[in-house]
């Protein structure tokens, strides 16, 4: 019964047997190592002259980049159905809801917080 799944657009079956070439894995590995060293180096420099919290933002950007590579290549999201993409993004979207809606309370709790 080949027709049990009616979602033709999910396109999972074609992707199922995609085999990632080893050089690509090694390249991602290189990027991850580089990112780790980079994040450690930039943490030493005080970037507050750009804007307060620039260090944290940069560290998180590097971490996000690393995560993206792990997810796309190591976890095969790049070769997966749209549903998997949606799932991965939804996870972070809900995390963002939790952060944003909790912080909207804390950041507006009292005047003067964060030097305002």
């Amino acid at each position: 019964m080949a027709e049990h799944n009616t979602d033709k657009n999910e396109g999972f079956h074609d992707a199922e047997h995609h085999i990632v070439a080893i050089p690509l894995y090694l390249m991602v590995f290189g990027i991850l190592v580089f990112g780790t060293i980079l994040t450690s180096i930039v943490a030493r420099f005080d970037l507050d002259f750009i804007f307060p919290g620039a260090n944290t933002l940069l560290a998180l950007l590097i971490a996000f980049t690393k995560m993206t590579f792990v997810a796309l290549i190591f976890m095969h999201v790049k070769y997966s159905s749209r549903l998997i993409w949606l799932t991965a993004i939804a996870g972070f979207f809900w995390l963002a809801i939790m952060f944003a809606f909790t912080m909207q309370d804390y950041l507006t709790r009292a005047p003067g917080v964060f030097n305002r």
Partner: protein
Amino acid sequence: MENVNAANVGNIRPEPKVNYLTNGFTAKSWLLTKDHKRIAILYLLTVSVFFALGGIYASLIRLELLTPASDLLESGTYNRVFTQHGVLMVFFFLIPSIPAILGNFLIPIMIGAKDLAFPKINLLSWYLFMAGGGLTLYALMLGGVDTGWTFYTPYSTTFSNSYVMLVGMGIFINGFSSILTGLNFIVTIHTMRAPGMTWFRLPLFVWAHYATSLVMLLGTPVIAITILLMALERLAHVGIFDPAIGGDPILFQHLFWFYSHPAVYIMVLPGMGVISELISNFSRKKIFGYEFIAFSSIAIAVFGFLVWGHHLFVSGQSIYAGLVFSFLSMVVAIPSAIKVFNWTATLYKGHISYDTPMLYGLFYIGLFLIGGLTGLFLGAMGLDVHLTDTYFVVAHFHYVMVGGSVLAYLGGLHYWWSKITGKLYSEFWSKISAMLVFVGFNLTFFPQFILGYMGMPRRYASYPEEFQVLNIFSTAGASILAIGLVMPLVYFTYSIFFGEKAPANPWLLPGLEWRTSSPPPTENFEETPIVTWEAYDFTEESGLDLEDARNKYKVTV
């Protein structure tokens, strides 16, 4: 259309020799079963026990409140009684009731699958539920818990000397049962649909469960980690929830309500799914605005995550955050209202028959409307300052939880009882019972709106004498409600042993679950069905001739 007497309709297709109930009689064949229908029965039995226990605690509360003085229960005991009523009803009855019993039983059948995608995980869910429930019951036997079902810090972390840890652990474990059930449903609905069963041919019951499962999956882990932090805080006293040393008790409330407000939608959404089925099927009419109802379920699930701060209006949350949460609480009313409008529009010019499930469906619409609208009162930040922690809140959420979820659960149980057990219950007694539940419920909780508006606070064992008359009404109503709720236990049990045998399709309805025998075989269908009809299709295209079913009734799968 006349109500077709179920017993008169012949079921042409021969009965399968072995159905899921007769497929093995040993204890092992039940306790180690991977059949979603048997697991649903296991849930039905155990959840009913928790419901009964929660009901006993509710009776104690109402008896205590019969008189103004704290005479039946001393106030410390009263704290434990209402806490345990809340914990049992919320975590061990309302959350698992419709999804784990009716959803478990019906989703695979409704989509034409043999089972859920992960039958072993389904069984594991039940065992986790039992472990969590067992721990909680153990704690109750030791002496219980008195923090309120919300476990607010720092009371739960520092001061309470009741069994917070044990109950917390019970809820933590039970949470994973809920997560795994949700995960199972989502995967099943995505991958297990029968040929031709497109997304927009799914019964709305399945859509509602899809939305519910999203909430279970995204929300429940947060309560798990919150309970864990609360327990660690109780053990180690590091102070993250203790303002005296720089912690923040409101952080606990944020994390708690991040789950527990969406959890309200875990309780309500499946009920809405049941009601969509009941209203459309007993109006013998295609549901009005199918897509709107389907997407409003998803919208409720998503918006439900954005409103939790309306539980914190008076707790010290910033005014700005309160404003945003208040506004979003109004927004979440829109998809709920869409559903109510569509249900009433479905009734218009329908061929309505007042069978017991439909009675529950109609009661639900009225009660949910009251519960939802009073929710808007409470969501308005200014008014909430007056109404917070009064009986108005209690009445509001009981109108949503009991008037909504419990009535939908009972309606669904009556509706699918013949499918689950293969027997017909007494139509006469079930109608009496439904009436008693409706009258008793309103008499119990409507006076509480007035009490709350007059300022009677919740969670106290004693109250000023001028509130007594309304409290007597409330307790009297609770007695009627209790009788109405015990009756199904009797006539359902009676029907299992002495009830008339149910045909496959007692009400002549087009849904896929009515196209297999009652009770269904273990694999649900003799052959994998091929779906060629739309949901709630009462025309010729459903493949069933529902106009003159007695002669022409046939099953095409």
